[in-house]
């Protein structure tokens, strides 16, 4: 059973082609990392999979239904995305910002329920922002905002989770801690996660599948063990990398 599947897709923007004729299947419990150099189209691919950018070719199915034929609301109930940059025009309270994650589940005149409020509070606690609810968003640090956005995404309760550089701006502790608790929760709930990552070792540590974007549409995918080789990664980043074993963990060290 696949939660998100792409068949023969081409994604790109302007002169950049992120992938060409790509088949991709995201299954429950899978955590994918998308790796590649700057400007290769990682974000574009993620936005295309989210239905936020036009697909150049191919077909995307979300939970067995064509992405085009789903209503926006249905789509938002099944698939959520964390953006790379946080935009805000007018500052709001942190609880209100996290409550936006509940938007696909509430409608029209009906307000948010106690159930929604409880869920928002749970998510704030989970990312270590308990007691921040009444603060204004503009008073948060970059890392605190990132955690707030992750809380909002958690409140959206989707089966497919797309993350664009989720640990941007985060302190080391939260990079590891947040990845662990969020990914554990998502995996336990049978979600499929795909994230664009910069830190290769963090990606290897927390994901079980890899998608490499080499540029000009060329890709490579598979299990972490089979794809994360010195030769693949050296070619991917255009920089020699050496495999280092520390205990049971495998790390890649840029030479």
């Amino acid at each position, binding site marked *: 059973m696949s939660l998100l599947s792409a068949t023969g897709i081409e994604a790109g923007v302007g002169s950049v082609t992120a992938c060409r004729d790509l088949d991709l299947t995201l299954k429950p419990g899978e955590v994918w990392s998308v790796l590649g150099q700057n400007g290769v189209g990682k974000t574009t691919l993620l*936005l295309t999979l*989210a239905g*936020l950018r036009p697909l150049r070719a191919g077909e995307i199915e979300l939970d067995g239904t064509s992405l085009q034929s789903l*209503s*926006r*609301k249905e*789509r*938002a*109930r099944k*698939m*959520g*995305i964390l*953006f790379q940059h946080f*935009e*805000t*025009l*007018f*500052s*709001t*309270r942190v609880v*209100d*910002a996290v409550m*936006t*994650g509940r*938007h*696909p589940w*509430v409608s*029209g*005149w009906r307000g948010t329920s106690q159930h929604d409020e409880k869920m928002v509070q749970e998510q704030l606690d989970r990312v270590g922002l308990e007691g921040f609810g009444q603060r*204004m968003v*503009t008073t948060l640090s970059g890392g605190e905002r990132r955690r707030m956005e992750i809380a909002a995404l958690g409140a*959206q309760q989707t089966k497919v989770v797309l993350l664009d550089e989720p640990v941007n701006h985060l302190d080391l502790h939260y990079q590891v801690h947040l990845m662990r608790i969020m990914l554990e929760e998502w995996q336990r709930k049978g979600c499929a996660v795909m994230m664009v990552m910069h830190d290769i070792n963090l990606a290897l540590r927390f994901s079980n599948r890899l998608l490499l974007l080499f540029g000009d549409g060329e890709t490579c995918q598979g299990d972490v063990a089979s794809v994360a080789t010195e030769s693949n990664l050296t070619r991917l980043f255009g920089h020699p990398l050496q495999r280092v074993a520390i205990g049971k963990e495998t790390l890649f060290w840029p030479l």
Partner: protein
Amino acid sequence: MGGSWVRQGWVIPGLAVLLAVVMGLSLSIGSMPIDWQELVVTLRTGGSSVSATVVFDLRLPRALSALVVGASLSLAGVLMQVLLRNPLADPYVLGTSGGAAAFALLVIFLGLPYQGIPLAAGIGSMLSMGLLFLLARGEGDWSSARLLLTGIVLASGWGALISFILSITQGAEIHSMLFWLMGDFRAVSPGLTRWILLASALALGLFVARDLNLLAGGELRAQSLGVHTLVLRLGILFGASLLTAAAVTLSGSIGFVGLVVPHMMRRLVGADHRRLLPASALAGSCLLVLAEMIARTVLAPQQLPVGVITAFVGVPLFLYLLGRGHRAGSP
């Protein structure tokens, strides 16, 4: 930052009461003062006394017009600020009012039937905002400087067109036509259409208030949360243009209401459109009823154009906001 008591819904009832008081003041103050007792009696019984004439024929139509124009321009301001993702957006500053005024004048100038004026004004404001929407959008997001420059150029373009029409119009009462440029009220009632437009804009706005909140936080994120942003944006464009046209055909171009009022209300009730929309409509009404009253009393028997009063408040605030940098947003 308002205390929690203002956040708990006191602002909106408070503003409603304030509006009633300001309306009462506006009806009683003037070259012929009418005290409260007399005003109550007059409003109850009507009749044909001198005070009834003053209240019903002169002051009430002007005050109601000011109310409708204030609410319409404030709502238009709130909507434009979401559409253009910029807290400096305002129908006057960005030329939307100018487009409505220029097209309305064009109808008069070409000798077309007067019934065509509202339609022409609607087309003018929509054209102006559509142009702004297309021209000011740089790569990706809105740049504040580009948006303001485009809007200001559009506004001065419409201003030039208006001046041109006025200068080649012969024998017409230029003085009375100047009101398209400066903004003023005459003893004309707002008319049913404008009330209906205002009420439905407010109701629809409240219905999509949550979507407006999301759109203000970024188009892609709003889309990812299930908002049909294209439809919403077109709706905003349409609604804000019609509101502006409704206001301009009644009072000419009154400036800065759509800028000043939403800014003040965000400080009081926050940026949530579920409260911001009704609060702005009420506060805009209060402001313009008050401005109209001041305009006809402060230098009596001289009457000032109402647009002059609002500009005195709006220009310093606009410059302050511009200087502070809009990205910080309103607290």
